[in-house]
């Protein structure tokens, strides 16, 4: 029995208690603030890119700096923000409570996971900062500029902290693996009595599918990076064509992980959306089985489509054909989810609180992202669009308009549970609107840049080609959008942070949710539940 007013935050005080905690809730919070910091850092690099491309032939930053900007934007966003964001930050906090347990299966491994993440992050930071120090510059180091994809042989020959950054990514991979492993075992073994697989909340299904991907796919990027490091240091000749190696082999290895990685990114987001749509429609989720099963289907098929990043890499037409076909296969389950979510709204009772605003934004933005993937999965149109801004627009719609928006939605949904405070709804909704508008301006314009041939990773562009008018107007518009987007995100975070001081006290269940986390106090006690958790009787999302 805990005293009134105690919760996991004031349960034990002091820095040491946080740094040595094995409480999944505290670990979740530590992850949360880390990923937010990296989101902002990655965002700064994005603004640098957009300012450089605002007009033709600008020299806002040098070519060298520009190459670093997009490389680091990618590395930070992919490895330090998006992949850990929903699973490690929100998932860590919510999952054990939703499952009816006191903690994850391996709490100490959870803490280790976090510290591995920190070490990887620090190494990545070192790789970013060191090339700017004079002593390193004298040694010939230049900033990292190979793109987050590190294609050989460029990544072999370019001077700079490639090894440091790939080691950082290798280390971060372990964090991802251990988190996934922990979640799989937790879901298998620690579910409360009565919670059969098909009575689990959909967030858990999606995190389960994500964890399978994390465990199976991440080691492959580990060995890829190891091979790249060996190639750079020992000239083993595996990827370098000058030594008889095969640079396309690098691409195969790299994308074998990195394609499942994008599903590691989106699946948890989809899980969050299921929770939000149901709760804020006060209606049972439509097609529970379809949504749950499609998560697993996506996870499985995602292993077989990596070659769609390589249609133009000189792989055989036959391979391309197979990959194109399977890519459409993985698109269908995602479409099914969208239809089911929209169907959930039908005859629901829609309450437009901030989390719901993000959920509806997700439906809009992810639909565009998913549909534009069709152009890229189709072989002939991909020839025209590969490595242009069309691809950039597509993946920002799914990764940012999908995952990050879902992350923001989940953050606002579980914020009262995590901190026991309510934020200002009006400001929250305004921030969502600004983000929505800014996002679309930034990235919809990029579809037109891409379809007229504007290549990726270009430092500047001329104002006099036959498509110059389109490039000028769309690129400028995209930059304006980016500024609006930045403002929206800033307002969003400021609103949340202020609530910590001045927010109203949050009730147990401010939104009327039906999953287990809403039956504990806000913030939860140290053991998550006061007393034993009774066996589960109702399926989740049952309102009547």
């Amino acid at each position, binding site marked *: 029995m805990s005293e009134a007013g105690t919760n996991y935050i004031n349960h034990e005080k002091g820095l040491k208690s946080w740094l040595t905690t094995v409480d999944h809730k505290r670990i979740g919070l530590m992850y949360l603030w880390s990923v937010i910091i990296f989101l902002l850092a990655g965002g700064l690099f994005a603004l640098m890119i957009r300012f450089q491309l605002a007009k033709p032939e600008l020299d806002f930053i040098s070519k060298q700096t520009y190459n670093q900007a997009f490389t680091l934007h990618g590395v930070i966003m992919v490895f330090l923000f998006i992949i850990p964001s929903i699973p490690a930050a929100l998932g860590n906090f919510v999952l054990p409570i939703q499952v009816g*347990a*006191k*903690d*994850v*299966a*391996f*709490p100490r*491994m959870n803490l280790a996971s976090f510290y591995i993440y920190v070490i990887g992050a620090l190494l990545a930071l070192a790789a970013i900062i060191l090339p700017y120090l004079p002593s390193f510059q004298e040694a010939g180091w230049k900033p990292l500029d190979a793109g987050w994809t590190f294609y050989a042989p460029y990544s072999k020959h370019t001077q700079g902290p490639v090894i440091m950054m790939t080691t950082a990514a290798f280390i971060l991979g372990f964090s991802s*693996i251990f988190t996934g*492993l*922990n979640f*799989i*075992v937790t879901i*298998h*073994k*620690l579910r409360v009595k009565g919670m059969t697989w098909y009575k689990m909340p959909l967030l858990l299904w999606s995190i389960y599918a994500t964890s399978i991907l994390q*465990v*199976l*796919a*991440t*080691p*492959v990027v*580990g*060995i*890829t990076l*190891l*091979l790249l490091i*060996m190639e750079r240091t*020992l*000239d*083993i*000749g*595996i990827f370098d064509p000058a*030594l*008889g*190696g*095969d640079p396309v*082999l690098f691409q195969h*290895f790299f994308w074998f992980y990195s394609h499942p990685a994008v599903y590691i990114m989106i699946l948890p987001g989809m899980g969050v959306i299921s929770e939000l749509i149901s709760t804020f429609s006060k209606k049972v989720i439509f097609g529970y089985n379809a949504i749950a099963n499609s998560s697993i289907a996506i996870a499985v098929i995602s292993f077989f489509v990596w070659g769609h990043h390589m249609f133009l890499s000189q792989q055989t037409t036959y391979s391309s054909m197979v990959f194109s076909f399977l890519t459409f296969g993985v698109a269908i389950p995602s479409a099914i989810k969208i239809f089911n979510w929209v169907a959930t709204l039908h005859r629901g009772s829609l309450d437009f609180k901030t989390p719901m605003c993000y959920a509806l934004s997700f439906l809009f933005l992810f639909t565009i992202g998913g549909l534009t993937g069709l152009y890229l999965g189709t072989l002939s149109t991909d020839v025209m669009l590969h490595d242009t801004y069309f691809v950039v627009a597509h993946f920002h719609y799914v990764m940012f308009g999908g995952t990050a928006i879902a992350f923001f939605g989940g953050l606002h949904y579980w914020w009262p549970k995590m901190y026991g405070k309510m934020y200002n709804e009006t400001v929250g909704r305004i921030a969502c609107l600004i983000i929505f508008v800014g996002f679309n301006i930034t990235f919809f314009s990029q579809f037109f840049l891409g379809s007229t041939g504007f290549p990726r990773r270009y430092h500047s562009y001329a104002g006099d080609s036959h498509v110059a008018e389109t490039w000028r107007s769309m690129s400028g518009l995209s930059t304006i959008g980016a500024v609006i987007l930045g403002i929206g995100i800033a307002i969003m975070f400021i609103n949340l942070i202020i609530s910590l001081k001045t927010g109203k006290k949050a009730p147990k269940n401010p939104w009327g949710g039906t999953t287990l986390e809403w039956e504990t106090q806000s913030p939860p006690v140290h053991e998550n539940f006061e007393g034993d958790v009774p066996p589960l009787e109702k399926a989740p999302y049952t309102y009547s």
Partner: protein
Amino acid sequence: MSTHDSNIEVDKSQFLERNVSHHFETADQEMDSCKLGMWLFLLTEILLFGGLFVAYVVFRSWHPETWEAGAEHLDWKMGAVNTGILITSSLTMALAIRQAQLNDKKGTVLLLLATVILAAGFLVVKYFEYGHKFHMGIFPGGENYMFAGRHLSNEHIYFSIYYMMTGLHVLHVIFGMMAIIWVTFRAAKGHFYSAYYTPVENVGLYWHLVDLIWIFLFPLLYLTK
């Protein structure tokens, strides 16, 4: 095979009784979870090595003659000895788990030590193998690694793959030895008995995988003539 039975009386003069971790409800749940966790981890190791096996297959299919010639520099007899050593060490490991289940503290510790010693033996043989190659200049940066302009091309790819695969495996042997030593200390202190021997079993699983990987490596690298 019996699992944990909390009704079993623990001989406190030899063993340190252990309570179930607070977030688990029963000892069975804890043991099942730990085993599942270990299997998942082993799965990641298989995928890690899998990448190297793929590289092996790709380059071997492109340069079959290189593979045959490169294998001539490997001594299959030493490889066979190592195979025998590892298989025996897996046996001692399995027996150690059995003895832990039977509350035989001495037997557990001795068998674990035997496993470590056998593993060390593996490393000694490897030391000689690598040493021989270094002596001949077949190492990255050495004279005979690249073989450019000699009677074979791309032989360095063979050795690159050889070193990466066996090197990564050696690293895992070392990690395995460290884990076994840790578990040996704990066994000596009486941590493991019939109702609780999960760490021994999990380390055993890991060790079996290390052995299994070698059983694939041996024919693929040594027996390709």
